[in-house]
């Protein structure tokens, strides 16, 4: 990198111009204007964030009630709560995490500790591909798979979980790979020197060292998928009553609930909109709590690596 002393980015012309004389009025004002533009652009980009959080809180709070959290919407006109959607969100996301976390972390272990040659290269490449799958396509995949075996029009909670897994696995792998990478090699070497087999080195030395980072990664991955709507719209369907069994029947969830209350409001339009916003507020709260808790876990429990 010695050549950067004569870097093309800071070429002769610019250098001589910079050296000639003091800071002219023009250069100074360009600097001020551009700095202001940059700061202004940042503020402009932040307006939607604040507007969105403010509006969701303002419009969501009227719809929050004890009923919203405790009852479903079976056979009620205009009233009813979202308990079935909250439970559905937990079940669908939970099953997705149960599928994705072991596969994702084992695959990251493969990439970082074992992988060599063609399989490693293929996995790295296809995890990149997987990161780019649009969420609706993941939903269509789950539908196409289950339709083949269970017939057309099928809707199950577990189909949604499968679709979400397609989205979640690459996120888990990427973050797990990052934290495994920063576990220093001298820890592994010390374990080997003591005669520890490789699998015990990984399970007793590498994973515990990386534990806080792994947990943080999983929490952020869950936060990313918990609000997914599109893949669930085509796989888990819409339903008014409580269903806790992911292997039988349709299952509601918060995101689809919010969409449905907005799209097909009943006779009491405003009540439906209120519930859509209340569901949105609940979702934002879940996402924010997961994100903040993830950072807390990392700061509090990360292993100091010297």
């Amino acid at each position, binding site marked *: 990198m010695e050549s950067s002393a004569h870097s093309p980015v800071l070429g002769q012309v610019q250098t001589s111009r910079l050296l000639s004389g003091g800071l002219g009025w023009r250069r100074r004002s360009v600097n001020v204007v551009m*700095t202001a533009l940059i700061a202004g652009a940042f503020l402009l980009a932040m307006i939607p964030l604040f507007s969105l959080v403010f509006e969701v809180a303002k419009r969501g709070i009227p719809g929050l009630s004890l009923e919203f959290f405790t009852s479903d919407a079976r056979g009620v006109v205009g009233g009813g709560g979202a308990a079935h959607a909250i439970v559905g969100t937990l079940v669908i996301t939970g099953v997705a995490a149960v599928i994705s976390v072991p596969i994702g972390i084992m695959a990251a272990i493969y990439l970082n500790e074992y992988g060599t040659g063609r399989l490693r290269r293929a996995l790295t490449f296809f995890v990149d591909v997987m990161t780019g799958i649009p969420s609706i396509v993941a939903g269509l995949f789950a539908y196409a798979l289950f339709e083949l075996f269970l017939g057309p029009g099928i809707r199950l909670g577990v189909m949604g979980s499968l679709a979400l897994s397609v989205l979640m696995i690459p996120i888990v792998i990427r973050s797990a790979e990052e934290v495994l990478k920063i576990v220093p090699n001298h820890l592994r070497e010390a374990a080997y020197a003591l005669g520890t*087999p490789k699998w015990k080195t990984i399970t007793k030395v590498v994973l515990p060292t990386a534990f806080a980072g792994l947990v943080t990664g999983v929490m952020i991955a869950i936060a990313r998928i918990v609000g997914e709507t599109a893949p669930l719209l085509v796989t888990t369907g819409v339903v008014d009553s409580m269903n806790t069994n992911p292997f039988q029947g349709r299952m509601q969830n918060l995101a689809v609930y919010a969409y449905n209350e907005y799209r097909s409001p009943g006779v009491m339009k405003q009540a439906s909109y209120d519930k859509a916003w209340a569901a949105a507020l609940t979702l934002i709260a879940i996402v924010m709590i997961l994100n903040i808790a993830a950072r807390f876990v990392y700061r509090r429990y990360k292993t100091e690596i010297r």
Partner: protein
Amino acid sequence: MASVDTTTNAGQLLAAASGGRRRLGDRVFSRTAVVAAVTILALLAGVAIFLLSEGFPALTASASELPEGKTFIDYVAPLAFGTVLASAIAAVVAVPLAVAAALFITHVAPPRLALTLGYLVDMLAAIPSIIYGLWGIFVLGPAAVPVLKWLEEKLGFIPFFKGPASATGRTMLVAGLVLAVMILPIVSAVAREAFAQTPRRLQEGAKALGATRWETIRMTVLPFGKSSVMSGAMLGLGRALGETMAVTIILSVSGAVSFNLIGQANPSTIAANIALNFPESSGLAINALIATGLALFAITLVTNMGARAIIARSNQE
């Protein structure tokens, strides 16, 4: 990566020392890791295979059997047009803002604020798309109506703003703007990482020669981060192409192919079309929707591959 190889070698040496046969625990654990890797490849192959097998009937069906009585190509073309148009608006708006936000965080704001400001931008990525949709139709759309009217009156000679302006704000322009907000954090994160890695030597050199802050940014930071910004922009574009719910909720669709961004009649996008029609469809209509999903997958794949190729090329240099 060299250090990883030495530990692998150490493990092999160890195995050799213990009589050349690997312990049972080692065999089971490494097999499990390989199985996980292969499962993921199989899952991805499954995505392609099942979409192909369920989409195929629509590709070969005659026009009269398909929704709207069109051949598949005629059915998907306006949707692909809408998808690309909405994403293009998003990218055009988001990229300059994202680059500026990244510059602000890395080079303008006080360094001790950088981490917090970064979190704020990342928060935009954490918000579920259904909420962007609700915000777009209840807040941004109504707020945009007077602006759309103004665009029609003052800039109506440009085809994009021909009008008549929508009275609800459910237009391509508003949908594109919401998509821009959604992809901004992705583009910004990639740019931020690159800008933060600009060699100090270059920046200090520029400053020592008397460059102002903007001149330092223009002569060292921006050239250094150029390829990262491009790949970040393409990653953002890929995200915008597949984004579903925000567009589904905001856009008032008619199937028209039009460059008019502020009107009531807009082309739909592939993803929004699936979300709108899938729940009530059956038979071949389902196959047709799955086939459009396959087309969407292909478009995003090409875009993302382009982004990776740019990254790979700039890493080589």
